[in-house]
């Protein structure tokens, strides 16, 4: 296998307020390979967005990376000075946020802000930057892109704005794109268009993609590999097919059981909420909501186990139970 383009090791983030420390991301480690689409799935509040931010060192106080490393091209992103980060962000690693109205500047035209992204990172003329901008807009299906360069974000619909943000991320042909639920607010038709473009980017340019979502059905068609997050930890990871066909962690199974698929008579209901992240867990973080929890689950923290590519952080993995 090729060298990983991104290696994350023991990443922990925390939010400090009034002497209380909330540990949001807890000891996350994974490798990302060129051309790979990695899905990250979990409920709201499980730490998946904050992990995405931490990968680009985008956390602001009171949030911070507490320990661990994110190595990209031989450098640890979490320890780089601002200058060096600027050459990576938006250039080698691009991020697509959930809400396009927040990530676009309302007082600049689409053309100005997109061309700025090219000119900030590459020594090219304005006309080259303009041509690339038009090309990127064409790719995400904006009709008559040359004419739309003069438009302001408010003149676009929500779906078009998000496509502008995605086109901006594509502009510098980055090595990695981190996408934080960018299609949640969009119609299925627009979503299909964007997913098709992302797949093309990964296949043709070898761009690696981290796609954060709460919807396993979306990831099932898109991702090569999936990591399931709960309470800041990766509770299971593996190839998309193995996760869907043979989930090991009860949380993974519950997430998929909640999706209305054709023929399903009843949806699985996951009661309760993700836990408070202020303290330490004495046992398994999912135990209070787990339908299969036994006494032991409250007492000892489960470590990741199972074959190398399908780790599940569970004392009683489902597939093991099925065999015994």
């Amino acid at each position, binding site marked *: 296998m090729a060298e990983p383009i991104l290696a994350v090791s023991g990443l922990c983030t925390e939010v400090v307020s009034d002497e209380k420390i909330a540990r949001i991301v807890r000891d996350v480690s994974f490798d990302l390979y060129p051309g790979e689409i990695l899905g990250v799935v979990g*409920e*709201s509040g499980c730490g998946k967005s904050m992990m995405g931010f931490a990968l680009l060192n985008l956390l602001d106080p009171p949030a911070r990376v507490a320990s661990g490393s994110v190595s990209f091209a031989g450098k640890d992103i979490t320890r780089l000075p601002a200058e060096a980060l600027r050459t990576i962000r938006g250039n080698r690693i691009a991020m697509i946020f959930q809400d396009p109205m927040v990530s676009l500047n309302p007082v600049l035209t689409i053309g100005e802000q997109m061309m700025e992204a090219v000119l900030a990172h590459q020594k090219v003329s304005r006309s080259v930057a303009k041509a690339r901008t038009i090309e990127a807009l064409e790719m995400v*299906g904006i*009709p008559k892109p040359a004419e739309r360069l003069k438009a302001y974000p408010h003149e676009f*619909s*929500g*779906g078009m704005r998000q496509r502008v943000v995605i086109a901006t991320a594509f502009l510098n042909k980055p090595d990695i794109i981190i996408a934080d639920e960018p299609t949640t607010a969009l*119609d*299925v*038709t*627009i*979503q*299909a*268009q964007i*997913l*098709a473009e992302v*797949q093309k980017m990964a296949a043709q340019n070898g761009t690696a993609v981290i796609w954060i979502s*709460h*919807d*396993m*059905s*979306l990831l*099932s*068609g*898109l*991702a*090569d590999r999936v990591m399931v997050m709960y309470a800041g930890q990766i509770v299971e990871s593996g190839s*998309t*097919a*193995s996760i*869907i*066909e043979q989930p090991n962690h009860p949380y993974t199974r*519950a*997430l*998929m*059981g*909640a*999706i*209305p*698929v*054709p023929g*399903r008579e*009843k*949806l*699985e*209901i*996951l009661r309760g*909420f993700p836990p408070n992240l202020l303290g330490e867990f004495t046992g398994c973080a999912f135990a209070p909501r787990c339908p299969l929890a036994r006494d032991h689950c409250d007492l000892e923290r489960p470590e990741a186990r199972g074959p190398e590519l399908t780790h599940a952080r569970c004392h009683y993995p489902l597939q093991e139970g099925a065999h015994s």
Partner: protein
Amino acid sequence: MSTTLLELCDVSRVFTRNDGAFDSLARRLGVGRPLENLVAVDNVSMVVNRGETVGIVGESGCGKSTLGRVAVQLLAPSSGKVLFEGKDIATLPVEEARRARFKLQMVFQNPYTSLNPRRRVGETVIEAAVSHGLVAKADARDAAIKAMGRVGLKPDFIDRFPHALSGGQRQRVGIARALAVDPACVVFDEAVAALDVSIQAQILELLVELRQNASFASVFISHDLNVVRYIADRVVILYLGRVVETASTATLFEKPHHPYSQALMAEAPELKAQKRIFTPIVGELPSPLSPPSGCQFHPRCPHAMPRCKTEQPALRQLGDGHFSACHLDMGQADEKHAK
């Protein structure tokens, strides 16, 4: 008692762009631009029977929310009639019309903006029932607790403000509020779109349970085909304000006739252990300000014929309750396929 509860007859809703004093003056002088009309809902007829759930599906801008609002009388139709229990609400005497509207309730998409942030949950839930005399003021608190209990909200939420609630809990408050007045029909406008899949499952199961125990019909507006397939008995597919296909849920998902319905289904995410190539519909949703001639889907349709550009297809019956507005004869198309 007739089975038809709510009937929309050739309902249209047109919005006129308000372009300000200068343009309106210029128009009076005969030099301005003509007024721009946006036909959000174009001659839609549909029926909601007692106790049934009708799903309305379409992309953003197809008029599905406008249609929902016309159905519950939040918007008046520009033409056509809305019949509730066989009577045209627009022609009823004031008091009777008020009672009819009261039987039609709505749950909105965004649980963060559809609740008054300065009002406690209990007040929000029971206010309408009290002001319409269904519940005496003295009993309001007990009634609120009962209404909240039906949607799975604990009594201690009664004095909380919306900001202290999660998204799923807020949506439950919206549903409790709609059900507190004992409605005959509830329109759910993208009621689960803003929620996580796990919360979405909770709300969907709640609706299934409520429907079994109560006698209200519902209209479920959504862009998510999987959700509609799960919850609805019948489905109406809208494109640019027009009905392109309607059928029972089973028929529609097994044998979609209209190319637009087929394309929508091809794009819906599926939970399968196999990577797939996403194949988006070509082209853009046209501007509703200048919709295409003939069949409005023709610029994006893979089967478009010359006739589709000029002639608007009418809804044709294909089977029991199955109607589609397309010139294509699917019988022929199937044969071709078989060869």
